[in-house]
């Protein structure tokens, strides 16, 4: 039961990082001091990585180009894919980096101000890496849903103010 309640703290924070310890305490029934202790410990242990805000940049008129880049890599003795992944994720353009199963090995979510910027990164930084055999770049044309949030607001609530 206690374990389950603690999980509720994280689930709530994942949805809304701004919840205060007092609010989390009211929601879960866990005393405020204990909530604080749990959150502090999670921050220290890097269970909580960071608190971020999801922003629809397109609404602000900010151009931002996203591309999903598939990378085929020759694995290296002893380190497998980890070493090349590390080289890649250190580039700030690499927003997310994953090792994937299937027809390619590493998937990278790349962001840039323009298509040109992304293209330059792929052709000049990524593709020339020693163990990279090939890359396929898919530019994202439209973002519908991200991190569980529907961009553009989804369907909204259509309930009447007073119902039985």
């Amino acid at each position: 039961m206690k374990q389950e309640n603690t999980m509720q703290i994280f689930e709530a924070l994942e949805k809304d990082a701004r919840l205060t310890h007092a609010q989390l305490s009211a929601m879960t029934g866990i005393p405020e001091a204990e909530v604080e202790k749990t959150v502090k410990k999670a921050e220290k242990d890097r269970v909580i990585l960071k608190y971020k805000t999801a922003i629809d940049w397109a609404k602000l008129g900010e151009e931002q180009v996203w591309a999903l880049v598939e990378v085929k890599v020759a694995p290296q003795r002893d380190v497998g894919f980890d070493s090349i992944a590390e080289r890649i994720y250190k580039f700030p353009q690499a927003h997310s980096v994953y090792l994937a199963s299937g027809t390619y090995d590493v998937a990278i979510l790349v962001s840039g101000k323009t298509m040109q910027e992304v293209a330059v990164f792929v052709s000049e930084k990524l593709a020339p890496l020693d163990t990279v055999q090939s890359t396929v770049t898919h530019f994202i044309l439209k973002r519908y849903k991200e991190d569980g949030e529907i961009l553009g607001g989804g369907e909204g609530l259509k309930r009447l103010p007073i119902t039985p």
Partner: protein
Amino acid sequence: MSKLHPRKLKTSKNCISGKVQELPPSGIRKFFDLIASMEGVISLGVGEPDYTTPWHIREAAIYALEKGYTMYTSNSGLPELRQALSGYLISHDGLSYNPTDEILITVGVSEGLDLVMRAILEPGDEVIMPDPCYVAYPASVYLADGIPVRVPTNEENAFKIKAEDIEKLITDRTRAILIGYPANPTGAVIPKEELKQLAELVQEHDLLVISDEVYGQLVYGVEHTCFATLPGMKERTILLNGFSKAYAMTGWRIGYAAAQTDIIKAMNKIHQYTMLCAPIMSQMAAIEALKGAGKEVQEMVRDYDQRRRVMVKGFRDIGLSCFEPKGAFYAFPSIKVTGMTSEEFSEKLLFEEKVAVVPGTAFGQCGEGYIRCCYATSLPEIEEALKRMGKFIKRNRPG
């Protein structure tokens, strides 16, 4: 034409039957038009989830429409749905109902309630029910020519209906007891031990029990006991349930009744002439809900539980005593400290702070001094409503 209408239609009033003229309108909807015209109102006056139906359920209904499922079903409902319900009742409650003639698919619990009253009551028969209780309970009995008999319940006794209080009101016209736990409007749940006392009383006086368990899956830290599972009660219980609350499917109008064959047959007889059948797409959606919405229901229950805690604590923090609801999605705080009646309070709160609540008196005389607040509302809205109500209480507290 005039032969069809023997009563002369001189005014709109005298073309309405005396019975319906006598029937008071639902107290819940009293402020409805007013609220609709106001801006910035936070409504805690709703009686439904703030979730839309889980997508896989909606998708199943869309698929059914695409495949051309647009016709009537059998009166008692799609065999697959009755089969699925029968399976659900066995695995969930250990209750075995024959899908052929012991389960009837209804248009929400509302229809089931109406059918059962018409099926079992002779004019003048009495049905005992708690006060406060859901607005349709007394109305359904009244419309079936029965007499609703109210058992007072109170905050001190956690709004539970007690066997000893019922016993005092039993007469030779008492036909049934109508209960709905977890309760709308109070959020009360009756533990199994106390329900057993009720069952003994029912046995002793040879009564029926109509048990509306539509909030059965929405309980917090306690167990819901299906009344029919109590010793000797399956034959005497008409179990009413539906998909509206747990699966966030209020607009689909889909529910069911489970009871012994004779009663289900009688209910079906009325149903075939009045409703014919529940909408087929809603029935298809219900099948999908039973197949696999456990995770979504669980998540909704967890969220309601969090909001319940916030709301109850919030009321107590602003100086209102609030009974801890263990089920459904309503809190029923006392507003007696203000010295106002429930109606005065609700109206003034709406005008001064733009928070809509339902006066407890909409649910019976024993609701006086209370208001119903629904916590199936987003947390920021609940917090804002509590803030506004806090200001209101501060201003309106005598002394």
